[in-house]
């Protein structure tokens, strides 16, 4: 495998070494606005679906706030909360584990400098320790909490938001990533007053949308960029169209480019793009629902209603749809799951419907919409029509029968995440996990007694490092895959 191919299989920003991160990540004007909010003072909740680029924005902000960068206005500490014990704990136990993780990461940061930091595993002590560090530096501290929310688990978030609120001060700026479905902020946290919610939305109407996707193609797919294009395509229009088709989702865009790169044609034309859409729909998008299902905990039964809604939406043959707010309200979690997996993207909270009442407007994933195009041919006319943003949306009204058969299942509290019981063979390199485990890694792990995802996720890195054929890079890869399996 070439180095370039290896890079293109990495889907999460956390999988990149710091040196490579800058090389392969690009940011639009709108992204820069978000990064500046992450760097500036004030609490921020960064909200976006799976693969929307939240982590990349956080890592970039952290990179600009390096502890030894004298010119930086603050010192950044990035903490990924992808930590199994945290997911399974609550109350004082959650606080203790959280504090231990934070202390560990701050200490690692401080080791690179001449500053001192110490604290014990209580929130008060951590608060004082960080305040003292800020005084030594005469700088603000920016705490960037990534993956604070797990889509299948809302229960422990109240504790997280309490900690977030407590740590925020005039010298500590807290930032956290959350998913669109996070609604349980606890009783002490007022989402409108205690933080600014910033949506990570990349819509084609934003400045620099097309340019961003061209830059990403150039950085990560130089071979693709050099391939000849048919007369009806230019690189800018192709990149913009692909970006729009996947609703601006970074991870899906990388998948799309990987797939397009694999086409055999001498030159890339609309037919190749059409083939890419078919391949993505069959091999990536629909299987995604099955991949996500075991991570949903008590929301697992919502997958079938989500699938039913998706099938309904993509048969409407329009690039966006207005759904009456009563339907959205009744099936909210299903719509959130569809947003999370990138099937739909919310573009408007409220718009009047021709059929009466008001609804939410969602943009539809064009790859999946293509599945219902007669003959599955991406014609010049269709390419032109879908490239524009002014098509009237389809409507689903509450008085219609379209969604009346879709019922909300009964949800049972306390359900364990099914993904944890899955065998580690399921983490094998595949369409779902392109940077997954190799056969040799699986064999080695099984021989050492690691049978399922839970065991691998709980295994200390030092233990894995002792296994035959396993070095630091492999441990990192194993941990990244298991993290992706549980959290993404």
């Amino acid at each position: 495998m070439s180095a370039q191919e290896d890079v293109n299989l990495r889907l999460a920003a956390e999988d990149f070494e710091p040196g490579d991160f800058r090389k392969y990540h690009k940011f639009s004007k709108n992204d820069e606005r978000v990064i500046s909010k992450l760097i500036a003072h004030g609490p921020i909740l960064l909200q976006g679906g799976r693969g929307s680029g939240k982590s990349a924005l956080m890592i970039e902000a952290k990179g600009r706030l390096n502890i030894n960068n004298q010119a930086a206005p603050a010192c950044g500490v990035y903490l990924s909360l992808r930590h199994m014990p945290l997911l399974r704990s609550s109350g004082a136990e959650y606080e203790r584990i959280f504090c231990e993780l934070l202390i560990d990461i701050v200490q690692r940061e401080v080791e690179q400098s001449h500053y001192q930091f110490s604290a014990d595993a209580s929130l008060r002590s951590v608060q004082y320790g960080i305040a003292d560090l800020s005084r030594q530096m005469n700088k603000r501290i920016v705490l960037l909490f990534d993956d604070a929310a797990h889509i299948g688990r809302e229960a422990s978030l109240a504790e997280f938001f309490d900690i977030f609120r407590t740590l925020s001060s005039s010298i500590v700026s807290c930032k956290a990533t959350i998913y669109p479905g996070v609604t349980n902020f606890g009783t002490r946290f007022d989402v409108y007053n205690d933080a600014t919610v910033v949506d990570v939305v990349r819509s084609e109407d934003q400045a620099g949308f097309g340019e961003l996707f061209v830059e990403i193609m150039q950085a990560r797919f130089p071979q693709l960029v050099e391939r000849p294009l048919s007369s009806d395509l230019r690189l800018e229009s192709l990149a913009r169209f692909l970006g729009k088709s996947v609703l601006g989702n970074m991870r899906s865009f990388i998948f799309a480019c990987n797939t397009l790169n694999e086409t055999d044609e001498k030159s890339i034309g609309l037919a190749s793009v059409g083939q890419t859409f078919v391949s993505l729909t069959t091999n990536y998008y629909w299987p995604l629902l099955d991949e996500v299902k075991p991570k949903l905990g008590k929301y697992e039964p919502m997958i079938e209603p989500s699938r039913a809604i998706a099938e309904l939406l993509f048969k409407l043959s329009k690039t966006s749809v207005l759904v009456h707010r009563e339907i959205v309200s009744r099936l909210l979690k299903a719509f959130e799951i569809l947003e999370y997996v990138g099937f739909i993207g919310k573009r408007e909270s409220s718009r009047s419907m021709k059929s009466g009442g008001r609804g939410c407007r969602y943009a539809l994933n064009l790859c999946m919409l293509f599945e219902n195009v007669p003959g599955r041919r991406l014609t010049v006319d269709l390419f032109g029509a879908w490239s524009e943003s002014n098509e009237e949306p389809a409507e689903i009204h509450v008085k219609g029968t379209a969604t009346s058969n879709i019922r909300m299942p009964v949800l049972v509290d306390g359900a364990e995440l099914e993904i944890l019981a899955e065998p580690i063979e399921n983490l094998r390199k595949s369409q779902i996990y392109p940077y997954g485990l190799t056969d040799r890694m699986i064999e080695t792990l099984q021989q050492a007694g690691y049978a399922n995802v839970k065991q691998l996720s709980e295994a200390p890195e030092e233990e894995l490092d002792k296994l035959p054929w396993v070095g630091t890079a492999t441990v990192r890869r194993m941990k990244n895959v298991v993290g992706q399996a549980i959290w993404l």
Partner: protein
Amino acid sequence: MHPLTELACGEPKPTTSNIGEILTHLSLTLDRLIVRSVKLRDTDDQVEIALFGPVLARALLEVAFTSLLGRLDPFRVLLVREFQKQPSYVVDRRSGVAFNWQPDVQGDKVTDLFKADLKLKDVPRALLGSYYQETFWREACQSLLDTVPFHRGADWMSRLRLVDPETFASRARGESERIYTICSKGVHHEFVISPGAYYDKGTIQSLIQRSFELIGMISITANMCETLAFRTPANRAIDLYEEAQRELVA
């Protein structure tokens, strides 16, 4: 006049009415503040930024919101005008009728808005308060979302589209309160240690940018409702909104 000023203050004529005179004065002030804010935002002088950034960001909000309140509730600003014209008015004494952030913009939390024994004197008339949400902002926000075509309004509009009309005032209230509070610490020189750690360039740039966007958000929405005095027609308002972004987005 700057496009953001025209959105916030309308196009008043100073000679035609008392309210026109007030809005003309406010629009001239807002224009000057915008020019100075942009200049400060783009400077590298850390001391200038820390000293004057909070003052300018807060002043932008105060002037724009006074103007919008005046267009919605002319009585409020006309009363201040008459009061200030009285011979008894002196500048070195605190005025009980002057524009005040908490009662005029934020308002107190009201739990039961339309209780049976509601009295007019108990109704707060804060610009972003609960009563204006019920009587004005919901209608204005719905009208905005229905009026602006999908491809118009640029970046600010793409974010504004995600605001639910039911929560418009609380969203705007939360954001304005956060900006105002951060700035207030600099305006009152609350820090007894160097403010450089809190008011770094990035923070001030972000505060000024957020102030511009917030003023744009509230002003374009207000212009979509016929209740507003000196209302800018929808098409013109959308043009101004886009023009403001071209000029102000760094």
